[in-house]
Each structure stands twice: as C-alpha cells, then as structure tokens.
C-alpha cells in the first residue's frame, strides 16, 4: 500500500504537474485536486504547488485562500493533515494563517530564478524526516514575492521552537528576515518554503540535482509507516 498525495490546481497554478511528477518519482500515488471542489478525495497529504494562483493579483496567495478546497484543507491541516506549501503554496499558507508571517516583494524587486543553497534546520517535520538537521541542499528558487517577514516577537518564537525549517545559505536572495527560506507549524505537519524541491528530483532536468526528493520520500515513509 502506498500513500495518496494530492496536488491542488488553482487557476494560475504552474508547478502542479511537476509536483505530481515528484510525488510519483518518490513512489507515492499522485492525486489531482481542483480548487473549486470542497472534497479532497481522502488523500493522505496535500501539496500546494508553485505558480501565480489568480495571477497573484492583490497579494500572492490572497485570493486562493478563499477557495472551496482551501476551506477543507485549512480545517484538516489543523487536525493534522500533512500539507506542504511550495512557493505560491507557502504564500497561500501564510495568507491562510496556517503558518505565521507574510511574503513580500523581493528586496531587489526582481523575479529571481537560480539554484539556491539551503540548510535544513528542522529534520523532524512530516516533510523533512529524510534529511538530517544541518544538512545543506541545493534546489531551484524562482519567485518575485519571496521576502519572508514577521514581527520580531514571532521570529524569536519561531527560532526558540525550532520552527525555522530552512535557511538560505551563500547569500540571502530576497531580503527574507533572518535568512528564513521556510517554516513549519508547531505540530510539524504544515511546512512551507519558497524554493522548489519538486524541481530537483531528476538528475538531468533543471539544475541536475536530486536534493529535493527527500521531501517526498519523507512524507511517503511517514504515511506508510503510520
């Protein structure tokens, strides 16, 4: 038996096919979810993929948050459903208040696409168990609204609780406070990050690294062993 992992398509989602492919390569069963449906087909976990849902008009993720599917996901995430938000997915999670903070325009104001080095700070979440704490990985980064901000109190709290899940290495690409690339909720089931692990799962494609596969293998193991 394998796990069923859903990937949501909002209007304007771009990396849904890539996320489905990554799920498949990791050995789980990919399931497409549609923004207008309230139901999530009893999947065991959900990936909110990258892109520009609703054009990212107003603010990235602001409109998607109010979709029927998000109503269900927000409710179930609070009850423990594993959810991974990548890039636009991370933005949706902060707009939904499942994760703290907010995403703003990069400090240099440009879209940036590059291979990005990260440190996995928390290897105990549902999505990072296959990494070791402190492990350095490289995965593509590509966004224009990637600057993570939260107020000092929240940041201190995140640090204290080990909820900064990933940090940028070798140069902060967008002005994110404390070099934060991704965070987790307190329970470790909801994780969001700006870089794209789903683009780093095949040796020839993209930057030619497979450092991102661990996200998908982590969740698969957790679900299958559960």
């Amino acid at each position, binding site marked *: 038996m394998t796990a069923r992992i859903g990937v949501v398509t909002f209007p*304007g989602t771009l990396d849904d096919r890539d996320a489905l492919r990554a799920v498949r390569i990791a050995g789980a069963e990919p399931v497409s979810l549609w923004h207008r449906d309230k139901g999530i087909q009893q999947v065991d976990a959900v990936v909110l993929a990258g892109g520009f849902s609703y054009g990212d008009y107003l603010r990235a993720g602001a409109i998607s948050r109010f979709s029927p599917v998000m109503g269900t996901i927000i409710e179930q995430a609070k009850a423990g459903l594993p959810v991974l938000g990548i890039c636009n997915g991370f933005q949706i999670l902060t707009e939904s208040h499942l994760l703290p903070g907010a995403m703003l325009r990069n400090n240099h104001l440009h879209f940036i696409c590059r291979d990005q080095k990260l440190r996995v700070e928390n290897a105990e979440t549902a999505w990072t168990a296959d990494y070791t704490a402190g492990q350095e990985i490289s995965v593509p980064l590509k966004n224009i609204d990637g600057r993570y901000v939260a107020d000092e109190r929240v940041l201190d709290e995140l640090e204290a609780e080990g909820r900064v899940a990933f940090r940028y290495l070798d140069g902060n690409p967008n002005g994110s406070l404390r070099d934060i690339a991704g965070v987790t909720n307190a329970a470790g089931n909801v994780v969001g990050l700006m870089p794209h692990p789903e683009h780093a799962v095949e040796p020839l494609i993209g930057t030619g690294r497979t450092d991102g596969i661990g996200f998908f293998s982590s969740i698969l193991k957790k679900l299958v062993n559960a």
Partner: protein
Amino acid sequence: MTTERNESAAKGRLDTVKHAAATPEAEQPWKELGLKEDEYARIREILGRRPTGAELAMYSVMWSEHCSYKSSKVHLKQFGEKVPVNDAMLVGIGENAGVVDVGQGYAVTFKVESHNHPSYIEPYQGAATGVGGIVRDILAMGARPVAVVDPLRFGAADHPDTRRVLPGVVAGIGGYGNCLGLPNIGGEVVFDACYQGNPLVNAGCIGVMKHEDIHLAKASGTGNKVILYGARTGGDGIGGVSVLASETFESTGPAKRPAVQVGDPFQEKLLIECTLEIFREKLVAGIQDLGGAGLSCATSELASAGSGGMRVELDTVPLRDSSLSPEEILMSESQERMCAIVEPQYVERFMAICEKWDVIATDIGEVTEGSQLEIFWHGEQIVDVPPRSVAHEGPTYNRPYARPDWQDALQADDANKLPRPATSGELREQVLRLVASPNQASKAWITDQYDRFVQGNTVLAMPEDAGMVRIDEESNLGVTMATDGNGRFAKLDPYAGAQLALAEAYRNVATTGAKPLAISDCLNFGSPEDPAVMWQFAEATRGLADGCLELGTPVTGGNVSLYNQTGDAAIHPTPVVAVLGVIDDVNRRTPMAFAEEGQLLYLLGDTREELGGSAWSQVVHDHLGGVPPRVDLGREKLLAEILISASRDGMIDAAHDLSDGGLIQAVTESCLRGGKGARLIVPDGLSAFTFLFSESAGRAVVSIPRSEELRFNDMCGARGLPVTRIGVVDGDEIEVQGEFSIALSELKSAHEATVPGLFA
C-alpha cells in the same frame, strides 16, 4: 451617455452597407487610416461601392504593412520556392506557425515575432504582450506551448534611456512568461547605438503536439458556430481607428484610444489550459488567435481559409467599455482572446469547459453557405465583403531597391588593418575588456529574471548554446532552440549577414548534440520606402533562402518588422534566425561547461584573420567596417554532423560554439561555467591575437576525455574536418602559453559585474 451613442447609431447614423451604397460621395478618412489613394480606389472597386466605416477599418488594418506584408511579400516568396528536401515539414508558411515532425508521433510548432514599437513606448506592457501574442499563435496550431525565447536589441548600454527600456522589457517578458508557466530557454541581448530610438523586442515560442492534433485556422461547415472566448474586448491598441469613429459619430466620439495594450497573463494561462482541454476533446473545427487587427483579422482569415462565408453579430461581443463603436470593436487588439469554429453539437461542451476555467465565451455568429463575410450591428449590416480580399488579396509592392552608395566605403574600411595589441600585456588587457564589454558580458542578471525550470522538463537553458526541453518523459525525446542575428555583420553585407545568423543558430543547436531541422525568422529592418533598406532586405532574404536550401532547413514561418528607424536613421539590418533541433535522447546532450580537469581541448574548423564586424573591433576600436567572416555552409553542415555524432557516441564531454568574441570568449564562458581553468597553446601558423579574437565561422571548441582522443581524431580525419589540439582543462586560471594568464576569479568578476552594474 455611451449607450446613448450606440442607440443613436443603431437608429440611423450607423454607416450601414445600405447607407454606403446610397451615399457614394461621402468623404472617408482613408488617408488618416494609412491607406494610399490607389488602395482606397481598389477597395471601392472590389465592393462596387464605397466601403462602410467598418469595412474601411478592416481593410485599412489588414492592408497595413504589419498585416499584409505588402513590401516584403515579393521577397518572402523565395522561402516557399527554394525549399530544401526535408520530410520533417508538416505545415508550411501561411498558417499561424509552421509545424515540423520530430519523430515518435510528435510534431513541433515554433515561431518568432516582433513587438518592437510598443516596447519602446511602454517597455513592460509592450514586451509582455509580445510574449502573450506569440504564445497564442502557437496555441492556435493545436500545440501545448512548452518554452519561450526572447532575442532582444537595445541602444547603447550606458545611454540613460536604455536604463528605462531594458529593465522594463525584461520585467515584462518575465512577468508575462513566468506567470504562464513557460520556461524561458534562450534569446539574446545585444546593445548598439543604432537601436537607441528603436529597440527590438522579438519573442519566440515552441509548442508540442501529436500529429493528429494539428489545428488549422479555417472556418468551414455551414451552420458551425463562431465562438469568441477569452478576455472582454476593450479599447486597446486601436489608436488609428478612433479617427474613424469620431468621423462617423460626430462630436460624441471617444477620447483617443491608447495604442498600447495591457496584458493579463493570468487570463492567458486560463486560456491556454482551457484551449488545451477543448483540443483534447476535439471540439473545434478551426481556430485562430486574436492578435494584430483583432476580430478583423480573425474573422476574415478564418472565413477566407474556409469553404463558405461567415456571419457575425458584432453587438454580441462582450465589451469592457460599452462606448466602443463597431469599427473599434473590429479593430481592437485587446489581448487574451481566441476565436473558434465549433460544430453546433459541441457548443454546449465547449461552453462548459470555458466555464470550468472561468473563461468568458460567446457565440458571435456562424459559418454560412455564401461566400461573403457579413457583419451585423443590432440587426443592421455594416460589413459585406469577400473575406479573401481583406485577408489575402491586399496590395503588393515591388519597392525600388538599390545598393547604398556608402556600402563600398564601409567594406573598404578594413577591420583587419586596425592597430593590434603590441605586447602580451596589452593582449591580456584587451581580453579582459572584451569579456566585460556589455555585449560579451554575462547576461545572468537578465536571464535570472526568467523562470527556466517550470514544467520540469528543462535540460539546457541559459547560458548554454541552445535551450533544450524534454518532450517525452518515457523516451527522453527532446527539442532544442537557438536564436541568433548579428546586425553588424548584416550591415557590412546583408546577404552574408543573414547566412551568418542562420549558421550561428544552426551551429548552436548542433553543439548541444541536437539535429537542426527547420527555422523561423524575425526580419527587423528600417523603412521599406528607403531603397537602401529595401536592398538590405532583399539581400538578407535572398541570403537566408539560399542558406536554408543549402543547409536543408526549411523556413516554417516568421515575421517581418519594418520601419524600425529614428528619423532617417535605420537600425542595422537585423535578421534574427531561430533554429529548431531534435534530439532522440536528452541524456546525450552536450553541455558547455569545461568541468573535468585534464580533458583535452580541441578547436574544430579553420581560423582565418577575420575581424570585420567583430566584437574586438567594436570594443577596442569602436569600429564597424570591412567584410564579415566568410560563410561556408558546407563546412557548417560537416561541423554539425561531427558534433552530433560525437555526442551520440559519447566522445565529448563539453562543447561550445565560437561566435562573437571569438575563441577567448568561448573558452572563458565554458571555464566559468565549469569552474575550471584552461591552458591554451597558440597553434602553429596563427598569431595569438588572431587565435583569440578572430570570428571565423564554422568553429567550435570541445572538451574530450583522453580515452576518446584517438577515436575523435579518427572520426574528424575521416570526414575531413580540420581539428587542432589547443590545450587542456586545468587549474584555476586561463593561461595562453607564452603570452599571459588571468585568474578565473578575475575573469569572473569582469564578465559578471557589467550588466548588474549598469541596470541593477
């Protein structure tokens, strides 16, 4: 007040067909709409009466240079006449885009278009809508768009206006393309003062489909519905016609409409997904994108290519601005719209798919038995024309052309005679200046603003010689594209310049291990009314057609952009060529990075003393003169065959083609990409200067594992390609033995600091 106008129009002031027939002497603003007197006379002759305002609007846009190719047609004909034997061609010139067979049941469509003028006025939106337009073209062929490219030309890098134009254009291309989820896999950035008042923003797109999914722009089948879907129609891009509207509607005429359109990439993304789903269910009989000339173009082209006539109820078109006149609706270039011909039994399903994707779709008419395109406005007929006369039978000009009187003097001003570096120190300093010059410097600051990873199929992208995407995950079939065009070469000799553009793009594709199949082009020139420009155009098209015939790569389609000039000064003739290639297994691709210490570097091809139009002559002497490098297309073909075989048989680990900047530029790029240095030896019979800076065509440098050296040499020897061992991958500097060495770190900062220094 706005509806009032339309109502009053409907009540009788509307210029109906009946009214036009009854008022033959009414004055019409044909001149303001850009028509010539004889063109207006021809319209009257075709119709047997004066045109209505709406008809005049349609003819004037469709007969414009941009839509009718009236000055260029006589020369473009050659692309259809000098056709190489190439069984890859599935759909040729004339459709929205050509289609080639890439094997395994797949077909690929690709095309390059210009959006030069709008991008100067509003860089962000001009460039963005350029991407949007070309993507819809590809979509209209039935293909899923899989990648975009963007060949760009700007004025001098340090001119203040370039600081306005470049960042806006780059942000616009990124803003639109990134939001569509199309990886940007290639292009060019060239600076030259000749483009100061006239930047060139060309955009290309590649689409993939199965053979059976090819869709053509035609309306046939009496009773089939004409469905307009996508964005609402607004007053964008109809600058000229407002003249007409205000003539027709007296004082209540609308304010002057903007000539620039604003794009909505989100809407386009929905349009793509929606259209692909419609294709999957085989719901359309014909389809056309709305681009230049909007509905005028789409309806007349669809009807013209079909078997019957067409009837359109123009007042059903969903509007964003209810004050638009019928003429304006016909001309509007509002973005993100498509027009489909659908059999009645499929309409419901078609509409349901549009609803699923939040795309507005409207039944605006149907295919009729007759042969006329008839358009109605609140029940009254305002257009009754033979569609072919609008879409395909526009005027053609054989404009006078003449070799300009300055051409001889320009060629006589020989770059090979320019003073050369006298010492090794000077040579070293010129190398550093070259790799740091805006044209040769790294464009990463620009290309990093484009998403090159989305869709998860990108095998190669910038700064590689060509972009490559996988199109089948099982078999690893891939397609490759490179675009090139050197306006300096074309200025010195437009015939050779066009062939050099073709040769370079062809070589770039082959360097990655892919087989070049076919080309598209974007021909950017000055005013066709200038005989010197017309000569450049005639020479360049002749050169390109001859070159394609010899290389065996047909022209599948393209775009002509004329009137690129500021006052009397035309831009350099700039034919941009996009070559499409195919690779059976992307695992075999050859990257550009010299990454393996100890591997041998070989130079393939002949190096002559050829500096006319070179980067060196520009950077060191600010000079343009002489003749461009010699073209030998037979040699290009042989070089390509060697590069492809070597990749297939695993003989080479890296390859990089030589073009502007010569050998030292290529070696610098490959060393920086791999993070390894190189020791170079100047071959016998060449000066270090010529070895490093000459821009002889038909060359590439490859990195070979020692174990493959013999086999590789044997292969080249057997096929008669000259190869020279020029050094080895080694250390952390580039050393030219007996001359100088430069640390990679120094080269890196010289190469990478320039563009961000200018624009960040």
